[in-house]
């Protein structure tokens, strides 16, 4: 039974880590815009030197 307090404190410590992560996310503004990021991740950021590939697409 003596190990219980240690385990409880350990579990609380883990829980506090998650709480801090949540607080950071709120402060960071992640809850302000829940739509744009879902689009942004689908947009590819092509390298500047892909000239040929782009030309091809527009050539057709």
């Amino acid at each position: 039974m003596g190990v219980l307090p240690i385990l409880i404190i350990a579990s609380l410590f883990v829980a506090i880590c998650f709480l801090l992560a949540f607080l950071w996310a709120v402060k960071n503004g992640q809850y302000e815009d829940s739509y744009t990021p879902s689009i942004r991740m689908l947009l590819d950021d092509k390298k500047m030197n892909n000239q040929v590939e782009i030309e091809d697409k527009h050539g057709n």
Partner: protein
Amino acid sequence: MPTNPPNIPCYHCGLDCHTSEIAVEEKMFCCHGCLTVYEILKASDLCDYYDLNQSPGSTPNEMGLETKYGFLGDESLQKQLLNFADGDKANITLTTPTMHCSSCIWLLESLYKLNAGITYSKVNFLKKTLNITYNTNTTNLQSIVQLLASLGYEPEFNLQQISNKSQQTAQKSLYIKIGIAGFAFANIMLLSLPEYFAKADEVPESFIWFFGWLNILLALPVLLFSARDYFMSAWKGIKHRVVNMDIPIAMGISTLFIRSTFEIVSGIGQGWMDSFSGLVFLLLIGRLFQDKTYQRLSFDRDYKSYFPLSVIRKRELKEESIPLGNLNPGDRILVRNNEIIPADSILISGHGNVDYSFVTGESDAVKKQSGDMIYAGGKQVGSTIELEVVKVVSQSYLTQLWNNDVFRKEDDNSIDSLANTVAKYFTAIVISIAVATLLYWLPNGIQSALNAATAVLIVACPCALALTIPFTFGTAMRFFGRIDFYIKNSQVIERLAEINIIVFDKTGTMTDSQGMEIEFIPENGNRLSESEIQLIRDIARHSTHPLSRKLVSFLPITDLYMEPESYEEIPGKGIIASIDGKSVMLGSSVFVTGEKKDRRTINATRVFLTIDDINRGYFEFRSIYRKGLKVLMSSLVDKYEVDLLSGDNDHEKENLLPYFGGNSVLKFNQSPEDKMKHIHSLQKRGDTVMMVGDGMNDAGALKQSNIGISISEDVHAFSPACDAILNADEFQRLPNILRMAKSSISIVKVGFAISFLYNILGLTLAVQGYLSPLVSAILMPISSVTVVVFSTVATSLAAKRILIDNPRY
């Protein structure tokens, strides 16, 4: 003569190309603006823009951007616009309403490729804002805004933006409060499990002590931070001698915390820390549910958001763009086509043709001669005019309306709300029961008396009661949003259920703001031939008069255009032109036919026509009433008094009368102030008034009324200060909305009844001293959950039946 190609969409913006001349690499563009954008993007290798979506662009405005945004160079103005400026770094949030697709996001976030001075740009699509950080050494605000405008993403600037910066922090702090309360709730629950299930002597003494203190530690932030608003609101209520719902809540949770702490510290028991944190958590969730606001909509706009931020001042033949606030009487200003006249002024030169529809509701533009006074708020239609300012912006005729007291008083409707009325009686009853219990148990010793009395306060905490309203109204609000009816806050629902008079504005509210029905009534039955129609269209095209423009859009489009050989427009009268060898006159009855006044013209606007001096008849212009107006009105006049206040003349009184009931008041030629006074006089009579309007001229009335509903074709576009915004297409659902509001109130009352039952059950246990932590831990969440489920489900069902399934009108 170029003929139209079959409709080819512009490669950039998707509009029809009227000519095939503007083309590059087999891609067609509708205008040089679009072509320019394409070339800019191509030069910077940003043509991915076109791969993401077809024709993703917005048609750019080709006006002189150089002078238009000159005012952004002004240091003091920049300071007000920027979020921060630190050394050579500056950050600004711009509103760009034209962004509409994923290509826009991509391009706006790739701005750094187009302007090296921009270090970072981030889009918030829902709010249509763009946050830009830039280096002040390599670029400046003006060139960034010009770049955006030339790409078709012209940012919106107005005075309102300056006077109030965003208040995002409230929402953020609510999230944090919920996070902390939820964290404490879950962990305390976990630590309380032995208390719930273990037998008395199974758990060692040291553990109980350890768990108890840990619980206090976890509950402290909930008390001091998460529940802070309830204590503050209760304190405010006590200070103003008003009993609000937060007083019994604050009483309940503070008793819970104090007694639990006492029990833990003195080793009597484990307390109710789980109930305490769970209660705060649930209450905050209710608040979140209720406070869901419509981010892009603004309900508190005044003239400032309607007026431009800058104006072009002419000084010694030099034109410069200056902030509106710096405008002084005596200044000469230039106002271009479709720009707002920002201050009362005198016309110096140019053809004034001012559209006051937004201010007065009067639909026809007014011709002005040089020397005439022009009031602020009108919109110049046609050529550029030069004006001399007479009064500063804030003292002008229109803006003075906002100096009225109505606009100063804060909305303070919370005092009489349903919840607070209930809270008044509730608090009184709970306190008297608690005192009675205390006195009853006193003979058995002070300890047990205090135990029983605090148990009463704990179990009577109106958690379920306080959750009924947020969940009912929050759900109703969501369903209202689905049919494009957006309300400012949940109290609006309560007031909607109370109204007994509805006042309508005419232009733009009962009539379609853009639509006009035009009919040609031929003289002697001679219809117009196709070639004649084309001649009229080609002549009318040259005129900027609103009636001519409406005529052009009404007449069928033909492929051929013909230039008139001669053309003359006589202001206030009409047009004389010769075209294709024929002489054509178009205009008023006196001008065209020489007849003094046609007695039939009283009810409608008419434009007469002669071709080669032969009278051919006239075009009749009638405003179109909104679809379903008849059914809507007939269902409203049964239950409410329905009035009409129109800024327009009484041309259409005869047409309107059948829509209204016998006791309706119909007033015409009403100034914005008249409207406000009419509403005020109704309220003095003891009536609760709902105003339905659309324009600036209704602003005073909307604010004065108990509920002001603004009708809008585009809910994101400008609408005056109001309590609710209704999409014009859903106008016919007004009776359903009112019915839904009433149903919501009934649901709240049933919810109250349910939570009272739980309270009575709990109280019966408490006064007898049977309230163990376990019973409390079960009873409290169950009562809350029952009420939340009931409110949400009942409201959803009612809304489905009344709002969604019901066919309109």
